[in-house]
Structures are given as C-alpha cells and as structure tokens.
C-alpha cells in the first residue's frame, strides 16, 4: 500500500530486538482514518512492543512511521501526544488519592500567572468531553472510589483532554465486566463517529468481532495476515493467531459429581481495612465438580480465598473439607488438609521470582519427605521432581531447573505452578484467575488440566473475573456480589445476560434492572 494521508498510521519495515531475541521483524501496518483497527496476537507476539514504538516508549531498530502520510520520528511519549497519539495502558497510570479531574489534567494543567491551577475551567472542559462521548464519569470522584471500568474511562479522557486523534487501547477489556465491555464498545463507536481513529491490542476474539473494522494478525513478531473483520469468524481468527487448529470451546464430558466434599457456611470476613467484605457467604462443592464463581473485582473474592487458605482471620461461619472445620487453623493446616491454590497473582503469591525453578517446585513441600531429610534438603529429590514436572507439563526451556523462574515466560511459570499444585494431589483445588496473562495455548492447557482433575474426582473451585472462562469451564456457575453468592446455575441453564446482571448487583428475576 502506498503512503497516503488516508491513513492515520502507517508503519513500514519495523524491526526491534531485545538482546538476541527479535521481537518484531519487518512489520508493515496500515490503519485507516476513522476506523477501529485491531492488532491480534498471543502474549509475546510483539503487539504491545509495536504499539509502544508508535507511542515513543521504545525505539525501533529499523523502519519508518508515517502519520497522515508524513514521516515522523517519535522519540518519546510527549512527542507522540503532540502528534495526536494517546495510549491507554493495560495497567492504569492514575493517582489513587486524586479526583478524576485532577488526574486528567495532571501534567497538562492550565494555570494563571501565579501558578494557581484553574480548576473550574479544567472541570468544565472535562465535563464537556464526558458529555460529548457519553463517558459517564463523575469528575469529582476519587480514583480509589470508582470501579476499574470507570478508571479506564478516566484514562481515555486523559488522552482526549490532550486532544489526541489516534487512541491506542492495550488489552482494554481484560478487567471489565460484560456490561462494561459493551459500554466501552459504544464509547469507541462515538469516538469513531467524531473522526478519531482507534487501535486496539487484544487477544480476545469476541471483542474484535464486536468492535473492529480491520485486523492485523501478528505471530512471533511477524505480520501473518491483514483482514476485514466482517469476513472472518472467531475460529479463523484464532487459527491465524496461534498458527494451528485450536479449540475455543473447552472440551469436556458432562460432570459426574459425587458427594459433598467442601462446604462454606455463613462465612463473614473483614478486609485489611476492617470492613466486612464477605457477608454471610455459603456454598458447597461436590467431588468431580468444577464450581465457578463469576464476579467483578472487589466483591469479596480476594478475602474469600484468603479466608479459605487461612491467611486471613474468619469473623464467623465455618469452612469444612471432608467434614472437618478448618477456618482459622493456619495455612499449614489448610495445605495438610489437601487444599491447593493456583493464585491469581503468581508473581506475588505463587512463586519466588528469584528462586530457581527447582526451588519453586518444592515451595509447599520443602519440609516433607522426600525433599527434606532430618531438616536437611535433599537436592537430588528436588531436582528429580522438577525434571518430572518439566517433562510432564512441557515447560520450556527444557533444561531450566537451575534457572531463576523470573526468566521463564508467564505461561511456563504458570505451568510449573499448576504442575506443582496438581502434584499435591489435592481434594480441593482453588484456581483464582488461573489463565490471567496467558496465551491461547497455555489457557487451553490450564483448562484441560482442570477438567482432567475433575474427571479424577477432585473438587475444583474456579474464581475468575473473566465471565467467559467461568461459563466455559465450570459445571456449576455462581455469581458473587457484595460478599455473598447471589445466584447459582447449572452450566446448561446459565445465561450470560442474567449472570451479567447479577454481577452488576441486579436481582435474579428482576426484569427492570
């Protein structure tokens, strides 16, 4: 395609290496003005790197960038903003204690001669943009008090306030509820109607189908294909992204649950700030059942897991496994009662990043035979166990037992964590966002493992912010809202609309909400 001012962005022959590793290899991309352009690729495909180059965070080793047909050299993000490019990062860059308006004008304050900020004018400007694009944000609310979806809108507002024409959204739906995603897509449409251009980085096919016009597929740093989204199906996009046939639907036979094995009764837990966040929650899980909990972040999921694992004090209520009460008995006792956890934030809770892969493999069992004899560690036993895990779970690179786990990719780290927890042979496996940040292949693997364990008769508690994941994998789907379970469905009868409504605080059978 020729360089032309019909295109908001054109990138030609972009190359970028980190060390010996070539992240981007001869990338060409054309984003037409006034469209939503999706960049689709697995984690590590290079899509974020490419956009960070456009935004001036990284510098390409080779290649040119054209904006509206003119060659530009973007050296840093502030130059990018001057050129009318804005980016909303996956992790928001907001000051928690500031109000929405304060965050929006930060770094771009209009002040009088004495350096006093003209907040009135700023607030008016913000409200103007809010109304124009239907962004629905209270300009005076503090960031810490508003939902993640709102925070994202603040990020978008920040860019619009600076007058950008091109908006880059990096994995914008990762943290949103189904309804918030719909609202985001509406906002995107409004922006397009106003003549803006949007680039959306994602690996989620559903959202591409719903939001985008064009799509560039990137795999291992190379452009695989450029397509019109309306000509493609989710399946065909997925295959282009991964480079092989994939199963988008979790393959499993109907559940064959046995007796009740795990039970929570009227559980009450306070969060770190002393506020009760789990409010009389009850649930029960049977052997051979995947019990899913859907819900928006901050509805008590974190405290629920902390309470079960014994990290947080339970105020009242009981937690029973195999008929034995385990609340407030300490984490070690919980582990000894055959409860294992795959944590949401593996870097924080699941692994010790500066330990070797082998040392991480024995994190919970370091004090038990065969890894420990008379208080001394048996490194041979540890290494043998690690090698088995590496082989069984196909962890890459193969000879990594001595490497610090920090150097492994997220997917491979998670494989080790999953392998380790499964090797504990738990009666109850709690999986909290087990596929967060993983690519399609790794997600498939984690889901398969959960189903396999279920078929072996284990009970599985799956807690995820991604509704699709809960709906696809679980046999029983429940919704958590404001610290209690507000609805329980069989997988067959679960309805996304209804569940979405419950997640947002609506009542079951409430037609008007």
């Amino acid at each position, binding site marked *: 395609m020729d360089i032309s001012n019909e295109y908001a962005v054109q990138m030609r022959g972009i190359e970028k290496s980190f060390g*010996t590793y070539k992240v981007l290899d001869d990338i060409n991309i054309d984003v037409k003005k006034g469209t939503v352009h999706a960049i689709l690729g697995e984690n590590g495909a290079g899509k974020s790197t490419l956009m960070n180059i456009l935004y001036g965070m990284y510098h390409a080793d080779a290649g040119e960038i054209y904006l509206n047909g003119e060659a530009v050299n973007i050296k840093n993000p502030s130059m990018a903003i001057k050129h009318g490019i804005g980016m909303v990062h996956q992790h928001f860059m907001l000051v928690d204690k500031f109000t929405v308006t304060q965050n929006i004008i930060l770094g771009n304050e209009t002040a009088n001669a004495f350096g006093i900020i003209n907040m009135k004018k700023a607030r008016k400007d913000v409200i103007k943009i809010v109304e124009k694009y239907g962004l629905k944000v209270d300009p005076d609310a503090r960031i810490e008090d508003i939902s993640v979806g709102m925070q994202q809108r603040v990020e978008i507002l920040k860019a619009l306030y600076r007058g950008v024409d091109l908006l880059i959204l990096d994995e914008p739906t990762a943290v949103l509820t189904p309804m918030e995603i719909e609202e985001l897509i509406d906002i995107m449409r409004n922006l397009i109607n106003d003549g803006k251009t949007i680039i959306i980085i994602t690996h989620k096919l559903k959202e591409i189908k719903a939001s985008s016009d064009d799509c560039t597929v990137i795999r291992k740093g190379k452009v695989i294909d450029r397509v019109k989204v309306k000509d493609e199906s989710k399946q065909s996009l997925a295959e282009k992204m991964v480079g092989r046939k994939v199963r988008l639907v979790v393959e499993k036979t109907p559940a064959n649950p046995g007796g009740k094995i795990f039970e929570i009764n009227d559980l009450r837990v306070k969060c770190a700030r002393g506020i009760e966040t789990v409010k009389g929650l009850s649930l029960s899980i049977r052997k051979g059942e995947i019990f899913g909990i859907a819900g928006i972040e901050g509805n008590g999921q974190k405290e629920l897991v902390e309470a079960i694992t014994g990290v947080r004090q339970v105020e009242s209520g009981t937690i029973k496994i195999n008929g034995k009460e385990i609340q407030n008995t*300490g*984490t*070690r006792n919980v582990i000894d009662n055959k409860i294992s956890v795959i944590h949401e934030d593996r870097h924080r*809770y699941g692994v*010790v990043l500066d*330990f070797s892969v082998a040392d991480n493999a*024995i994190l919970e069992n370091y004090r038990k035979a065969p890894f420990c004899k008379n208080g*001394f560690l048996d490194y041979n036993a540890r290494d043998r166990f690690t090698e088995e895990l590496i082989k069984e779970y196909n962890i890459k690179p193969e000879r990594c037992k001595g490497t610090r786990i920090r150097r492994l990719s997220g997917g491979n780290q998670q494989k080790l964590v999953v392998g380790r927890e499964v090797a504990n042979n738990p009666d109850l496996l709690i999986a909290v966002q087990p596929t967060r940040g993983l690519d399609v292949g790794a997600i498939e693997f984690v889901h398969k493992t959960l189903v396999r364990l279920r078929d072996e008769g284990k009970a599985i508690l799956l807690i995820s912010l991604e509704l699709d994941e809960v709906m696809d994998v679980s046999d029983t789907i429940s919704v958590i809202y404001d610290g209690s379970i507000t609805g329980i469905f069989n997988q067959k009868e679960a309805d996304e609309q209804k569940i979405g409504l419950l997640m947002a605080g609506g009542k079951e059978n409430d037609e008007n909400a």
Partner: protein
Amino acid sequence: MTRMLKILKKPVTCMLIAIFCGFVVSALILFATGYNPTQSLAIMFNAVFSRPKFITNVIIKSTPIILTGLSVAFAFRTGLFNIGAEGQYIAATIASTVVGISLDLHPILQIPIVILSGVLVGALWGAFIGFLKAKFGIHEVITSIMLNWTTLYLNNYVANSARFHKPESDGTYPINDSGLTMILYNWKFSEEGRSFLKNNQTLNDILLKTDLNIGFIVAIIAAIIVWVLLYKTSKGYELRTVGLNPHAAKYAGISVNRSIVFSMLIAGALSGLAGALYVTGSSSHNIHVLSMFENNGFNGLAVALIASSSPIGCIFAGLMFSGLIYAGQSLQFKTGAPSEIVNIMIGTIVFFVALTQIIPVIADKFTRRRSEHVK
C-alpha cells in the same frame, strides 16, 4: 573473548574490579593531596604483609567484623536489614564482661559460659527487634538504631558502676584469666615457652607479640554453619523464601512472623559472638566508657555489602577490611597522610561493589551483540 565475558559475569570478578577501582581512586586522591601514591600503597602493603605479626594482627582484628558481617548478611538473606549489629555487639561485650568478672571457674567451663552469655544476650537483643517487627510491624531499622543507643548508654552505666568499675581507669576490671581464649596463653609466657619461642622467630612474632586467639577459627566455623543453615536445611529454605517473597511464603504455610523473630535471633547471636570473642580474646578484656560507637557492628554492614551477603565471602571481605584499617594506621604513622584515606578507599570499594552489579548485565549485552554479529 566469550570466555572472558563468562569470567566477567562471576560475582567474584566484580568484587575484584571494585576493589581495584577503590585502590585507583585512593591513589588519585593521595596524588592530588600531595603524597606519592605508589610509595603510599607500598607502605600499606608492607604494613600488612611484611611481618608475621602484622598478618596475625589483621586476622585478629578481622574476627569481630567477619562475625558482624555474617550477622548482617544472614539477616539480609532473610529479608531483614540488621543495622542493630552494633548494639548487639555491645550488649554481648557487656554480658561477657560481667559474667567473666563475676565467675571464676575452670577454663573448660568458664570459657563456654562467658562466650555463651554474650551470644545469648546478643540473640535476645536481635530477637527483641524481630519481635517488635513481627508483633507491631515496627520497622527493624528504627528499633535497631534506637536500641543501639540504649545499649551504648547501658554499656557506660555498667562500665561506671561501683561493682565493676576499675578505679582510675575508664573501664571495668578485665575478666578473670580463666575466661581468656588466647592460644597457648599460659604456655607462651612460661619459662619453657619463652625459651622455645626465642629460637623460632616467626612463632615468636605470631604468639608472643599478639593476642592470637581462637576467635578467627570460630568465625570461619560460624560462616560455614550459616552457609549450611541457609542453603542446605529446610529452615534456611524457609527463611530465604520469606526474605525474597513473604507473600508466597505465607501462602506456602510458612509463618512469616516466626521467621522474622528467628532470623533476628540468629543475626543477634552472631553479633553477640563477635562481642564475646572480642572480650575473651583481645586485650584489655573489658568494656570502656564509650562516647561514640566503635563501629564493629557498622563495619559489619560494609563487610556484608562487599561480600554481597555471601557467608563465605564475609570471611574474605572481613580480612580485607581489617587489613585496610590496619594499613591505614601505618600509613598515617609513616607518611602523615590522614588515615581517613583508608575510609575513602573503603567507601569507594563499597560504592564500586554496588556499581559493579551492572557488569554482568553489560557482559550479557556484549554476548548477545556478538552472537548477533555471528548471524
């Protein structure tokens, strides 16, 4: 080339480069202030290596800082910053002095009791800091610094107390002879010993002219024990896990609070051992009124830093540190150059040690760039 890059990535290489840089900077400063750098460095070298007595003295002086270095390094490996080594050291010297004066048993009992009393008090001092952190969440740096001063004044109180103060001195009585840990102490001053040593110049130098004691051997054993504890036992695994990621440790069923108290207990015991061995091994075998810290604990911080918190590395870092201080005194004596030049040297070395952490990173980059060229 590849081999060189591999060598560059080794921590020991970084350390040597840092030490070299420290010497270069010191030489420049000596030059700038009007002293002959080569001559000065030669004096320093001779001050340490020219006589067996000097080497022995360096070894003796290294004992306390190796141990306080170990204390800091151990705490650091378990995620704690033990700036309280100084206070733990002083507390132990008080305890050992008091017990050493009060008791007079057979050496076989006296020596272990005197040393253990110091170790125990040091351990309690450390554990108290750990307890405050575990129970109330008070940062260990704050409590340690306060406790350091408290201990300093406690030291002065005991040194001035009627029970222990030696008249017309600034300190207490020395501890009873039965608690002394010098090697061949009785023999070397006997008729037989003296006549034997007269014929052996080297041994005469080492034994008779110094306070050669068992401390250094104990310090090496302690370093090995700390290394085994940290890297070979399940307890050590637990402590290191807490040090690197307390959240993961908590979820793995490790009691982080208990771990903190235990770590500080061991760290305190190590500093305490330093103090106890100093009282029993080096004259004047007592405690003095202190107007300022003697820095045996704080120097341990520098030792641990130079050793990158490696227990075995502390032995070498402690020896080097002690050598530099010893050589500095000699430098001042012989050329009139301020002994502060040694402090500058040590400071520069510590600075470069921190700086050389990037050498492996640079080496890594070179390796990659080269392999790209090959492509």
